[in-house]
């Protein structure tokens, strides 16, 4: 009987457990979980603050998940060292775990920027975990002004989550636009205007350079007083376990298409790892739930001796703020097709007969048809792209495609 150890307990770990069990029903699975919670959906921490979910509904898998999958979870335990020779993991508590196959699913940690005087700010938190959300929930009062550093997905989701729990929210970012890693300036401007209507204030192209307790001095010279500070400038892959035992690490743990690291019998998946973005050919950390699960599943299958590869990863995001949805996928390179819709926009990028990426704000219906074109690298001359670019549907595909997809098992 094989012995599997998984470090981390997020979406990637769940993928690994389900992947292992799809091949091996009997092997022992041990999960090392620093967080003391049953696996929950990390993105839901903002929905929790908003009152749109609760601690039961936000569980990523049902309460009996570990039991049904024969996995033992060591809650509140942190892995601190791997010995690949002895195939052994050491925990902070001193406990040791032997493995036949190991998966690193440690996710990422918030990066706290080294800003002068930050340590003088007492009411301060990152926004990554259920504990962070609970800390915010108990700290905030309707009288509070909150300053959020970082106008990326995490900062903005935090702002949406606490909108009705405080008086004022200011979001600052060194970038000149919101969601700068996902959207170009035109699309970002639409989202920003929408968020401003909700009552969120922005200081862009500007950031805090100095803190004095409850006051931030900005690069522009402006002064912002606040009662609570949220730092959301970005995340860093938790890759040190592999780095420390000699494995290959770049911005994240380097893995091949089977999610194997450079060290024998050690796999990695999720936010701690790097995969190739098929739209740019570049290996990078793509910190999204779908990829964490899919990569974890792939790792799990291979750990258990099965065959699975992940070779169609691409960055993508679907986020909404108070009813306005925004989707993006792939790379924004090549020729642009743009369509303005009421209160929204659609931008498709094509290059060398392929769809490379898109941004859509507003009418996102059936956008997955575009994502599939990117993922499958479908040659655009094999279908009626003139029709498809106006509206995603299966009509522009040939009848043969439809007979296959709608007339048989897929």
């Amino acid at each position, binding site marked *: 009987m094989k012995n599997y150890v998984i470090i981390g307990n997020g979406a990637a770990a769940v993928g690994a457990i389900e992947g292992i069990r799809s091949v091996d029903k009997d092997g022992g699975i041990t999960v090392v979980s620093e967080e003391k919670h049953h696996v929950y959906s990390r993105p839901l921490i903002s929905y929790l603050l908003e009152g749109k979910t609760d601690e039961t509904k936000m569980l990523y898998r049902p309460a009996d998940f570990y039991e049904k999958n024969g996995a033992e979870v060591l809650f509140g335990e942190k892995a601190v060292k791997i010995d690949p020779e002895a195939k052994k993991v050491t925990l902070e508590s001193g406990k040791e775990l032997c493995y036949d196959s190991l998966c690193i699913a440690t996710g990422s940690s918030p990066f706290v920027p080294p800003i002068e005087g930050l340590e003088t700010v007492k009411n301060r938190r990152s926004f990554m975990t259920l504990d962070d959300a609970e800390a915010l929930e108990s700290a905030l009062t309707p009288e509070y002004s909150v300053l959020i550093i970082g106008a990326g997905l995490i900062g903005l989701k935090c702002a949406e989550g606490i909108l009705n729990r405080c008086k004022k929210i200011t979001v600052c970012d060194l970038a000149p636009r919101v969601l700068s890693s996902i959207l170009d300036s035109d699309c970002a401007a639409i989202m920003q205007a929408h968020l401003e209507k909700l009552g969120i204030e922005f200081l862009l192209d500007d950031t805090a350079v100095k803190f004095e307790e409850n006051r931030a001095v900005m690069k522009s010279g402006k002064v912002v007083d606040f009662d609570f500070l949220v730092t959301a400038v970005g995340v860093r892959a938790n890759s040190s376990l592999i780095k420390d035992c000699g494995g290959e690490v770049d911005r994240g743990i380097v893995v091949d298409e089977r999610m194997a690291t450079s060290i024998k019998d050690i796999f990695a998946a999720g936010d701690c790892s790097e995969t190739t973005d098929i739209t740019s050919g570049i290996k990078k950390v793509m910190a999204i739930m779908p990829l964490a699960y899919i990569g974890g599943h792939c790792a799990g299958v291979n750990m258990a001796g099965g065959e699975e590869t992940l070779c169609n990863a691409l960055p993508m995001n679907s*986020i909404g703020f108070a009813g306005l949805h925004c989707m993006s996928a792939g790379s924004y390179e090549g020729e642009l097709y743009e369509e303005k819709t009421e209160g929204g926009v659609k931008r498709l990028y094509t290059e060398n007969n392929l769809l490379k990426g898109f941004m859509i704000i507003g009418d996102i*219906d059936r956008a*997955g048809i575009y994502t599939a074109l990117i993922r499958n690298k479908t040659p655009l001359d094999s279908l009626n792209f003139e029709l498809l670019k106006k509206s995603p549907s299966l*009509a522009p595909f040939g009848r043969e495609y439809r007979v296959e997809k709608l007339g048989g098992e897929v």
Partner: protein
Amino acid sequence: MKRVYVNEKWCLGCHLCEYNCAFANSGESDMAKALRKKAIRPNIRIEEDGDINFAVSCRHCKDPICVKSCITGALSIEDGAVKVDHDKCVGCLTCVLVCPYGCIREGESGAVQKCELCLNNSCGEPACVKGCPNRAIVFEER
């Protein structure tokens, strides 16, 4: 497993399946009351281009990318059928972003909606197929 399959050349483009779907999932027992003066939001949709018509609903994929991608665990597979837990779903629409066939859509309640083969409503078997006048959609094993 039995699924809904499409015989494109027999589709009349009459949209009856859309109405039957909307009714079956309305929770109402009277069709007029369920649908009158309402914009319907069915889980099966007729797509058209010139003289081609065909119905599209969830394929209940064998390895469903929507389930793998769901950020909350609201989508799951039960006896081969892909279903939504409306209580868990937060309407992030990640599943809409990944479904290759455009078969899952924003619902009215904040959660997404999709074909569940009428297994979870009072109909018990796909209402769209039952009402199709020309066998352009069938519910069978293939």
